[in-house]
């Protein structure tokens, strides 16, 4: 294993198996991993890179990753210097995951905590069934995003695709651009002071502090689908 000048461990997936890499990272579970910094070379679209981490690690991936990168992440900072495939940071619990490029469908699905930043676009079903994670997307998101999203927030600096927030619960959704259409029971809501503050804080954490948080539009649940009501039977 080689190290960078800053002391980070360098693992080249062209010569080290993915399983070996993930095992090494899993073996560091705890409060004081050594080394803390990791650099992963040649991911070439491999699946499940840096999945299931549970330590304050700082992992940089130099290239494009495949499915389920940084899934279930706890405490670690995972930075992808490229694009990510399906299921990025799925069910992440805490920590930070940053993707410099685009992410495919279901980014941040069921995420429970922490921060996910996609600097480019995210595909369909971004933030599906979100449960507490905060997501900031620098570009646009695809259709059926925030479907049944329960907690946490989704900030989109570009456009949103069709059926945004279908059957949404209490996730806060903010979009700067155009929304293709809203899903069942999702409505636009007034952007109050506390919401501007929330957007501002998230943009700052994500490094998009040149955007004006007061011009985002806010979407959320009309709360008509929470309990069965015969007048809404057609919407279930």
């Amino acid at each position, binding site marked *: 294993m080689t190290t960078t000048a800053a002391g980070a461990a360098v693992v080249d997936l062209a010569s080290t198996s993915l399983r070996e890499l993930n095992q090494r990272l899993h073996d560091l579970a705890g409060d004081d991993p050594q080394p803390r910094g990791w650099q992963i070379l040649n991911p*070439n*679209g491999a699946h499940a890179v840096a999945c299931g981490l549970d330590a304050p690690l700082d992992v940089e991936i130099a290239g494009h990753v495949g*499915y389920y990168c940084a899934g279930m992440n706890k405490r670690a900072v995972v930075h992808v210097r490229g694009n990510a*495939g399906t299921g990025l940071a799925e069910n992440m619990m805490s920590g930070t995951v940053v993707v410099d490029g*685009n992410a495919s*469908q279901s980014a941040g699905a069921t995420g429970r905590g922490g921060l996910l930043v996609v600097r480019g676009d995210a*595909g*369909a079903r971004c933030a599906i069934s979100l449960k507490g994670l905060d997501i900031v997307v620098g570009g646009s998101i695809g259709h059926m995003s925030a479907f049944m999203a329960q907690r946490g927030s989704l900030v989109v600096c570009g456009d949103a695709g069709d059926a945004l927030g279908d059957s949404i619960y209490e996730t806060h959704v903010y979009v700067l651009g155009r929304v293709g259409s809203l899903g069942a029971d999702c409505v636009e809501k007034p952007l109050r002071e506390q919401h501007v503050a929330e957007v501002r804080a998230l943009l700052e954490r994500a490094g998009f502090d040149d955007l004006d948080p007061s011009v985002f539009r806010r979407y959320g649940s009309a709360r008509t689908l929470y309990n069965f009501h015969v007048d809404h039977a057609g919407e279930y």
Partner: protein
Amino acid sequence: MCGIVGLYCKSPELEPRLGEYLAAMLGQMNDRGPDSAGVAVYRDPAPDGWTKLTLYSADTGFDWDAVGGEVTDARARHAVVLVEEDAAEAEASVRSRFPELRVMSAGRTIEIYKEVGLPSSFVTEFRLHEFEGTHGLGHTRMATESRVTTEGSHPFSTGQDLCLVHNGSLSNHNRLRERLRREGLTFQTENDTEVAAAYLTWRLREGDTLQAALESCLDTLDGFYTFLVGAADGFAVLRDPVACKPAVLAENDDWVAMASEYRAIAVLPGAADAEIWEPEPTVVYAWEKEPVR
């Protein structure tokens, strides 16, 4: 599941290595479709007035010279035969004289090879690295809708120099198959993709452009699909409105590539720096040297 790959050479310098790259791409999609594999390659146009047929014989000892054309290639129970007839005559002639053979493809440039078994074995058995050509597409199959057979493998021919590969499953193929039978189309399997291929064949026969035929799939086909359609001058991609079946497109100055996953594209020269994006649902993406029809 299933895996799809496609490569279109923008730079002629890439053409001698088409097979090598297709083989590497298919190898990456091995675990998405371990049941069978196939490719369509576009190369060596037949002379004017001639048709190029790719034929398949279940019997490994078949004497290809008996077909009565010029045999230009033979590998793993497949052979490429040039005949001085138009495509319809050539196909009909082979079917009536050799009912035991399957016509895999017919046209001027297309060749289709497909077989059951692991894609990694297919690549070796068919010596894929030898192929030179302008473009090609491939498929690795994880069967869901019908049996694992050579005939049920992809690509499916959809007319002269046209073929289809599919990731997904169609739910209204039985009804549509009956409708297409009434239009005179014939079927070799119970496979859903064969119905989609026949549907495209029918629409193109009725005068639709490839673009229009693909767009009409959005109204006619019920189910999940990412389609890659090969044509003499290029290829086209379409995803259904829900778009749960993956697709990645990438392009640079030398090539255009399509695959189910980026890892299949990562094997190409310059992939990491190519423009990479996901095709939008319901939008037809096409690359062609000249109009596809």
